[in-house]
């Protein structure tokens, strides 16, 4: 099936004007599938790490949001052990006027501001609330082990 104009244009723009700290490259054999990497924001426990994600634009995109998942292990209250992300704009607050670019920026922002009150990984969220310092320390260690190689 021919690729919709929207996806072609969006991809072109992602290549021509990349967002600082974020890259998204489509697979040559499947232009709906992107290899994504996001740099951990500075001042966050993910600083210095490079996190790999996979992103897929479903048939109905942009009426339905892109499917996106962390491939790099990460210790974060809104990201579970399968790498799934709890983020409103990926679910109920998705608008077809949003783009891959805006979604990736939201994910980067989520790394900078974890929200343990809307958890996906319950155990992590609980620890985050009970002993934030220790949780942040673990997040730092995981970043070192998994996202800095």
């Amino acid at each position, binding site marked *: 099936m021919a690729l919709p104009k*929207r996806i072609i244009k969006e991809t072109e723009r992602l290549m021509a004007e990349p967002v600082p700290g974020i890259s998204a490259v489509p697979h040559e054999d499947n232009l709906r599938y992107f290899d994504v990497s996001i740099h951990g924001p500075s001042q966050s426990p993910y600083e210095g790490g490079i996190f790999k994600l996979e992103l897929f634009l479903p048939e*109905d995109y942009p*009426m339905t949001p892109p499917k996106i998942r962390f491939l790099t292990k990460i210790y974060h209250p809104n990201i579970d052990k399968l790498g799934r992300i709890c983020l409103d704009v990926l679910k109920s607050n998705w*608008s*077809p006027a949003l783009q891959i670019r805006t979604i990736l920026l939201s994910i980067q922002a989520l790394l900078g501001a974890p929200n343990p009150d809307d958890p996906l990984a319950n155990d992590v969220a609980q620890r985050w609330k009970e002993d934030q310092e220790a949780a942040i320390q673990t997040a730092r260690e995981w970043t070192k082990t998994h996202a800095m190689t």
Partner: protein
Amino acid sequence: MDSEDEFMSEPPSGDEIDFDEGTQDSDIGSLSGDFDHDHDNGFGYEKDILANPQKPYEVDYRILSPKDIHSHQERQFNEVSSIIELPPEQAAILLRYMRWNKEKLIESYMDNPEQVLEAAGLGPTLAASPKTKTVKGFTCEICYEDDPTMQTYAMKCGHRYCVGCYSHYLTQKVKEEGEAARIECPFDGCHRIVDSKSLKLLVDPSIQDRYEVLLTRTYVDDKDNLKWCPAPECEYAVECAVKKRDLNHIVPTVRCAYDHSFCFGCSLSDHRPAPCSLVKQWLKKCEDDSETSNWISANTKECPKCRSTIEKNGGCNHMTCRKCKHEFCWMCMGPWSEHGTSWYNCNRFEEKSGADARDAQARSRHSLERYLHYYNRYANHEQSAKLDKDLWIKTEKKMTSLQTQSNMSWIEVQFLDTASKALQACRQTLKWTYAFAFYLQRNNMTEIFEDNQKDLEMAVENLSQMFEKPVNELGSLKVEILDKTTYCNRRREILLSDTAENLKKGTGCTSLV
């Protein structure tokens, strides 16, 4: 078939154990467990309970038919319409926009009518019928098409998209997401509600119809004291005054006019005696741990003595291995000789072994064993309920075909239907007692609870065992089966009453381990 289904509903294949030839023939498809329509049953024992709704485990509620729901809405439209002096159709839009909060609507309308009308998509521009148009040099921000002959549309907020995208967006919202009264403009961050005139201009008639249906549904969706019956295609709703904050002390089980029983608090099927929050927690745990428990369960379904594979045909847990004649309990795999006596205690998990556990590994093993103890019993009653039911369906068929030979009429064999229903209800309760017990903190309440559980379980296994007798013997067991049915129902009532009373008092039962 996905693996979880397989585990919950079907025993592993192999046929070493066999209860009687009567259960071997015709494969009757399984019925969906919780929501069967049993219109022609006048024997359901729960009817008696409803006639006396003052048991500790019951709540007051009212059933609303589609007609009731319709007339309730009409009444409110007219009432609001006469107060704010707008036609009832507009009052309807405002009420839905305000989530049926009549007081708030009237108050804010009196305060600032223009603002309210505007926000609900009833602004002055709406007087003229909305139109689509072409715009020179326009690029649609959704599809990036820029064909100058393309029709476009924008509401008063000015966020303009091509008609194709707008329509696709609205269709998606209505059809896939079931939204109606509060669909917002496609622009990210714009909260303008898409009004019905705009919607009708842009989508197909079938979507318009669906939109109308969904609008009606908001009446129930938006009210805390109303809930739809969750059974597929059921159009009844239930009104109940139990509040969210009461849910730790009450399990509000209700029933629609079609006899679909469900929990008003969480819309799941009847999960008494366990409170909603505990059910949610338990189901989550089962989901998280499904791999481990699947593995264990799959590996324990063999005769504990000769190791031959076991297939369970009926719901009864008293097993006799066809090969070595060993009699044992399907739940704990212990010898049956230890059951059915005064010291039947296969429902209780032996906590002692855990207290001695010194190292972390032993502790984690103990916690897994503890979970599996309860999980296996929970899953087992769920499966047994289904097997009991399948057995009854087969028996009923056979009885119908045997009618000419047997000297009992169809009416006369209905005691088996009553027994089957009692088994279903009791196993449903037993199933949840195990989830409940998993979270129960050990104190003197626990002992009473476990005794009740044990008594009910024994009663159920006794009845279930009779139920599996060859069809030609069932007739002569009628009185005994009726007695046992009454006894089962009685035990269930006692268990539910005791637990409900303790929950109300908050004595120990909700404290989590």
